[in-house]
């Protein structure tokens, strides 16, 4: 298998704050890659850097061998990296269908002919189980439906890499189980997945490789089993060796 997505020595500063420090990442094609770490560790910032929403202060991002550092997010999307958002951001007043149509109409290359776009969008909605709600305004959907809608909108761009930002947070166990199935199916279509996740159970179940971020630095990387037994990771999560200051670990 070849490396499809790679980050080298990524640094990102916000003013005096270090959000990412020397982060490396290499994702194999077809893999499900997990990114975990306490709140504020820089996970979402890393996604923003990969997807082009933020420019890294230094460092390089490569996608399928091409250097994509600092390219505009709309171009990166067309190259084949799509994402979802931790706090869902559907286009609130547009219908579910229109939400997905944005992805179909702009996020993929080459462009589908006009008459096929609606069919394609509907099939994405069906895939995530929202076929019935196509005409519903996104703001009227429930949280889990919004999360599914975001996945459908991302899939509509025919991504090679899908970035999932905490897709299961705030969901009930049944909903979580359903989403895990969906993620597996997406993988079986040949899409590489990078997921930020707080729920360790999900990471253990899905991911082959896991990276742990702590205060913007990569402190561990390996199989889920290796990572959770790493003493540094345990310290980062439980804070046993130093008095708690932040107080909001995993």
């Amino acid at each position, binding site marked *: 298998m070849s490396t499809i997505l790679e980050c080298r020595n990524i640094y990102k500063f916000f003013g005096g704050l270090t959000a990412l420090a020397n982060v490396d990442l290499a994702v194999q094609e077809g893999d499900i890659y997990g990114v975990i770490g306490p709140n504020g560790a820089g996970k979402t910032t890393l996604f923003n850097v990969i997807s082009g929403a933020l420019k890294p202060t230094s460092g390089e991002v490569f996608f399928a061998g091409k250097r994509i550092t600092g390219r505009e997010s709309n171009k990166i999307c*067309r190259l084949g990296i*799509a994402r979802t958002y931790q706090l869902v*951001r559907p286009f*609130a007043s*547009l219908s579910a*269908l229109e939400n997905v149509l944005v992805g179909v109409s702009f996020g993929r290359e080459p462009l589908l002919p006009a008459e096929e776009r609606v069919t394609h969008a509907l099939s994405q909605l069906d895939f995530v189980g929202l076929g019935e709600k196509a005409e519903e305004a996104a703001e009227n959907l429930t949280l889990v439906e919004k999360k599914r809608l975001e996945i459908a909108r991302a899939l509509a761009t025919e991504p090679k890499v899908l970035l999932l930002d905490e897709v299961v947070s705030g969901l009930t166990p049944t909903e979580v189980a359903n989403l895990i199935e969906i993620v597996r199916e997406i993988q079986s279509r040949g899409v590489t997945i990078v997921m930020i996740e707080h729920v360790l159970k999900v990471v253990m179940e899905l991911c082959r490789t896991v990276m742990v971020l702590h205060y913007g630095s990569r402190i561990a990387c390996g199989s889920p089993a290796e990572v959770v037994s790493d003493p540094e990771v345990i310290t980062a999560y439980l804070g046993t060796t130093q008095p708690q200051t932040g107080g909001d670990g995993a």
Partner: protein
Amino acid sequence: MNRNGRRLSALIALAVAGVVLALLPRVAGSYALVWISLLCVYLTLAASYDIVGGYMGYMNLGHSTFFGLGAYGTAILLNHGQPLAVAAAGGMVFTAGFAALVSYPLFRLRGAYFALATFGMISLMKVLSNNLRDLTGGSGGISTPPGDHTIGAYYLSVLIAFATLIVSYRVSRSRFGLALFSIREDEEVARAFGTPTNLYKSLALVISSIPASLIGGTYVWSVTYISPPAVFGLEIALSPIVMAMLGGTGTLLGPLLGAVFLTSCQELLWTKLPYLHLTIYGMIMVLVGLFLPGGLVRTAWFRPELDRLGLGEKISYPDLS
């Protein structure tokens, strides 16, 4: 199917309206024609404003700049002996070029900052039209070759207003329109899903500037005199926007409804009440802002009427192109 039935009734309504408007000059006096021309000026401005303000969600309070530039451009060319078609086309090209040019810095701003900056653009135009005396006649205004153009201006205004509504309709059902909606809802996400937001924002501004400049040209041709306050004043700047808001932005019918409603109110009220017009506009704006953020089209009274007319249907995409 139901939608086809609605579409048919809408087409019939349009055809009837077209015939009535075409035959009107044979029966109606010039007063009515002038009134309808003015209504069409407002309607064109309101509907073209809505492409940027309603579809894309950027409140361009300086939309009347395009009206004024079109009017001045046309007037200057008319005075150089050009025929109306050439003069209006010249005004349009100039205005569209201006829109393309200012879109770059203006769209660096968002939300209320954008609204205020575009509003500031009008005062810049007022200063320029006052100060560039050789070109614009300064505060004394500019006169164009005289003549009674009532009927010609009537037909032109109706035509431009109608064309603007069609453009607005086509935009709302297109891929481009979908991008504008997505920019309104969440620009960053729209961009992350492949929309070329900067290009489309500029394009939307240019498209909305064209009808405004053409109707400006028609207006000056018809009234044969304009001055800086007449085309860059507060009333012409704000009434189309208030109309679009009152009717309901982001819909085809909102600006139409708002323009007819408010122009009729003006006709009834202004003659009886010579003062405080701006206060009344202001109060309408406050009331719409507080109680009717979606405008009249989204209230319970108008919903059924729209459904019957077949123009209030949800946008669906059978022919997305």
